[in-house]
């Protein structure tokens, strides 16, 4: 893998079935709303050797009409929503800022946990995301420094600490340690961590 520029990484690995599923899902999402993939899948995309039951992503706030169109498109392409079925039922979650989970029809995992960005820190992921150019299409992922800070200083489970360590190891020459410190501070302010 190589940095093409500060916000673009070229990844030449053969894609897994999980990567292909993510690309299939994202190709639909991006027709309706801007998205950024966050958390564990970012580490897995760059080779972390673990499975995941969900792929987390933020989308920007979206109108009801547009969200229903998106939902219909997902259903037409073989996805279902685990949380609800009717248009209103699904959109209720969006209105209440609750994450929705989508998976391939008749499967529960892996699923896509779609959250509408609401908090200041959530919305900031759209300012500095990274585009990963794979052999079969592009993906937007959260900035690496932001990922590391969230996993290391907020989530902090063994799994999250290992994810952060993996990303730190892989990209050690490219990471901006001052940014990680800043995100740590921002997370502390927003979520009250020590």
């Amino acid at each position: 893998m190589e940095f093409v520029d500060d916000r673009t990484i070229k990844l030449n690995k053969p894609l897994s079935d999980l990567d292909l599923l993510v690309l299939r899902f994202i190709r639909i999402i991006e027709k309706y709303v801007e998205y950024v993939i966050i958390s564990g899948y970012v580490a897995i995309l760059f080779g972390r050797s673990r499975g995941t039951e969900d792929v987390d992503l933020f989308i920007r706030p979206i109108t009801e009409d547009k969200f229903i169109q998106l939902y219909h498109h997902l259903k037409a392409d073989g996805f279902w929503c685990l949380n609800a079925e009717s248009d209103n039922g699904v959109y209720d979650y969006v209105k209440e800022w609750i994450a929705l989970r989508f998976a391939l029809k008749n499967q529960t995992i892996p699923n896509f946990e779609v959250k509408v960005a609401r908090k200041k820190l959530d919305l900031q992921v759209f300012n500095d995301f990274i585009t990963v150019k794979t052999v079969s299409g592009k993906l937007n992922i959260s900035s690496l420094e932001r990922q590391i800070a969230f996993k290391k200083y907020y989530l902090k489970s063994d799994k999250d600490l290992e994810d952060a360590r993996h990303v730190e190891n892989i990209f050690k020459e490219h990471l901006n340690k001052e940014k990680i410190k800043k995100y740590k501070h921002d997370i502390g302010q927003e979520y009250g961590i020590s």
Partner: protein
Amino acid sequence: MEFLKSSPDNRQARLLFVDYWADFIRTHPDEEWGRQHTNFINSLMQNAKHYPLTAKQYLEIKEEVKKENLHP
């Protein structure tokens, strides 16, 4: 690259593997580490097809069941 180190402490052994594998990725072409990684991830994807829980059961574990969940 260095050989994989080990430790009697499970937590430490896991971290040593994380470091070892990241070093492998950094020192080998994407195609090479990616092939191994893809085989691993694809096997997990196959297992996922046999996941025994319904959506409702899964969401209950996640504590994400909201009012009228419409799926059985």
